[in-house]
């Protein structure tokens, strides 16, 4: 095949790509922090929280898990303004990622809570803690520790999924790649570079999350 690979353009467009990377990183940082918080709240409702709230949380979780992220994004960005809720593209992207990760992490964290030995709840009760105190101080951290690898994987999945926010003109890494390839006419090389960049980001994010787990959770001595 006579195709000539060409990466000469890379140096000139590096600043644009770096800008895109920074937006992608920002998106996942906000998405992960708020999304997991939302997930914890929802998992609490579904396991120990008030019964009347549970159907709403279930509906939310099922709805999000069974529709494409791209549609959630479009609905938030294009659809919500008809409810007079006008969001910038970046806000919409942030919101969509939080809502999306919230639903997935709810299910993952719930599994962690449900794996808590019965005795832990009873011990909390016998120490005169309220159910919420038991959840907060006794159940939650071991539950998160139990499912941390699964949660970390899900966060990475959401980061990779964030590449579609370019479709509402959020200037993330994919947006930058789209822009670059429209100028350099080297679409394949440009997307190859972007793809490998995502791969590196995914590996680094995984390491960061493993590190967070290592720092936050108590470790058993070997």
């Amino acid at each position, binding site marked *: 095949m006579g195709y000539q690979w060409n990466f000469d353009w890379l140096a000139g467009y590096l600043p644009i790509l770096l800008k895109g990377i920074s937006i992608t990183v920002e998106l996942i940082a906000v998405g992960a922090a708020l999304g997991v918080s939302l997930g914890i709240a929802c998992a609490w409702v579904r396991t120990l929280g008030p019964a009347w709230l549970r159907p709403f949380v279930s509906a939310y979780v099922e709805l999000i898990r*069974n529709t494409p992220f791209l549609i*959630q994004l*479009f609905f938030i960005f294009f659809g919500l303004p008809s409810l007079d809720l006008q969001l910038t593209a970046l806000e919409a992207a942030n919101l969509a990622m939080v809502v999306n990760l919230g639903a997935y992490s709810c299910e993952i964290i719930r599994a962690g809570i449900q794996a808590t030995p019965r005795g832990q709840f009873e011990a909390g009760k016998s120490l005169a803690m309220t159910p919420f105190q038991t959840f907060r101080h006794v159940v939650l951290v071991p539950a998160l520790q139990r499912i941390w690898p699964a949660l970390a994987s899900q966060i990475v999945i959401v980061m990779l999924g964030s590449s579609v926010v370019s479709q509402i003109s959020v200037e993330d890494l994919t947006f930058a790649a789209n822009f670059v390839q429209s100028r350099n006419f080297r679409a394949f090389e440009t*997307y190859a570079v972007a793809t490998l960049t*995502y*791969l590196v980001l995914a590996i680094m994010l995984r390491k960061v999350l493993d590190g967070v787990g290592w720092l936050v959770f108590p470790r058993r001595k070997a």
Partner: protein
Amino acid sequence: MGQFTFFDILRNLLIATQWTVILSLVSFVGGGIVGGLVLFARISQSGWLRNLARGYIELLQGTPLLMQLFLAFFGLALFGVAVPAWLAAGLALILWTAAFLGEIWRGCVEAVPRGQWEASSSLGMGYLQQMRYVILPQALRVAIPPTVGFSVQVVKGTALTSIIGFIELTRAGTVVTNATYQPFLVYGLVALIYFCLCWPLSKASQVLERKLNVAHSHH
């Protein structure tokens, strides 16, 4: 543009849904076949084949599906011909699905206890016989719920093919929105249709999972 009734919108979306369904089926079946190859490479006794499969899985699971679609689209174009969107979409989704299914199935094969390998070895079976008669039949049972569960990801994944110009449900949603200026209604309906496609699969996966856990049931 005001002449679009609710039923016009719904009809247009449902027509496009056919393509979402067809692409999902093709991707799932094709991905299953390629995924089988990935599985066998991943658990083979040859070291380089195992590493190749692991690299493949890590690459496809560690990069966005959208990038893979772009690469398929522009990569195929390097061969000179104009690439129809359906071809790039189908190819990328098959390869993507194969990576995930291959990895899911590997987990299922590895969940078969070591003793099963040892017992079948001690009876004189070779690798392929062990696989065919002892390991895969057991792995298959465990594999069904997560495999059905992953089909949901495939259906949702097809939405991204709208971005490279394949006309399916999401793309139709955008087109109809542009014609009607009713994004709330249209994207709401699109979401609802996706939900109707995906939710039964999710539920089926959960029910199968529960059945598998409750029973040691061959009966």
